[in-house]
């Protein structure tokens, strides 16, 4: 798994490549926690390069989203590919989070 972060106006774009599984979810969650600790409460998570996510990754997402919501922030998603899209769908995450086809579309909504 590879995480890169960039600033776009008031939002932070977190791009994740590879796999978020039980082995890497902790690192992913720490990355998100570091952004929150730095005062970034508007996160666009770009999953264009993400090939695989398991419930460990969803757990990190939900835990972070709960903390963001308590601070008046939000986490939205972009670029979900086939298998990741399927996992969002069956978990119900597809309906509790805002999901956009591209990072550009997501940034317009922040």
């Amino acid at each position: 798994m590879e995480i890169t972060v960039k600033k776009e106006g008031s939002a932070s774009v977190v791009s994740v490549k590879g796999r978020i599984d039980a082995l890497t979810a902790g690192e992913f969650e720490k990355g998100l926690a570091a952004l929150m600790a730095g005062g970034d409460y508007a996160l666009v998570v770009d999953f264009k390069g993400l090939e695989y996510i398991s419930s460990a990754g969803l757990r990190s997402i939900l835990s972070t989203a709960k903390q963001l919501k308590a601070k008046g922030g939000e986490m939205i998603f972009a670029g979900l590919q086939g298998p990741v899209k399927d996992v969002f769908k069956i978990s119900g995450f597809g309906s509790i989070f805002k999901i956009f086809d591209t990072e550009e579309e997501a940034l317009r909504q922040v």
Partner: protein
Amino acid sequence: MKQIPEYIRVPASMGSLQTSLAFVRFCLASQGIGEARLREVELAMEEILVNIFRYAYAGRNGEVEIACRLEGGGRALVEVADRGIPFDPLSHQDPDLRAGIEERKIGGLGVFFVKQLVPDVRYRREGERNILTLPIEADPML
């Protein structure tokens, strides 16, 4: 057609995850099961194995046996066994998929995925062993 079940035995720890997933993938791929289905089974297997690695032996050392038997016609039977505390993961209540971010409980999704991806998954306790049986059909569920 191979009749002898192939299996591996690994330490019940997170360090065994990749080896275990690769073993199942290799077995199913040799049966001609396609990439989309391989990924679904991989997800189901991760959820099962991580549960066992983390909880089955309650902090003690233990092992997990994974068997993969080809059944012809693109079908296979995967079995996961441990000698940990008796536990039926399938008895877990399904999560409330419609709950919002604040109400939604963290956890419970792993087992739910297993049931969605391998609907015929079964649990049994046999002597000292917990055994999960996963009949794998070739077609993707999603």
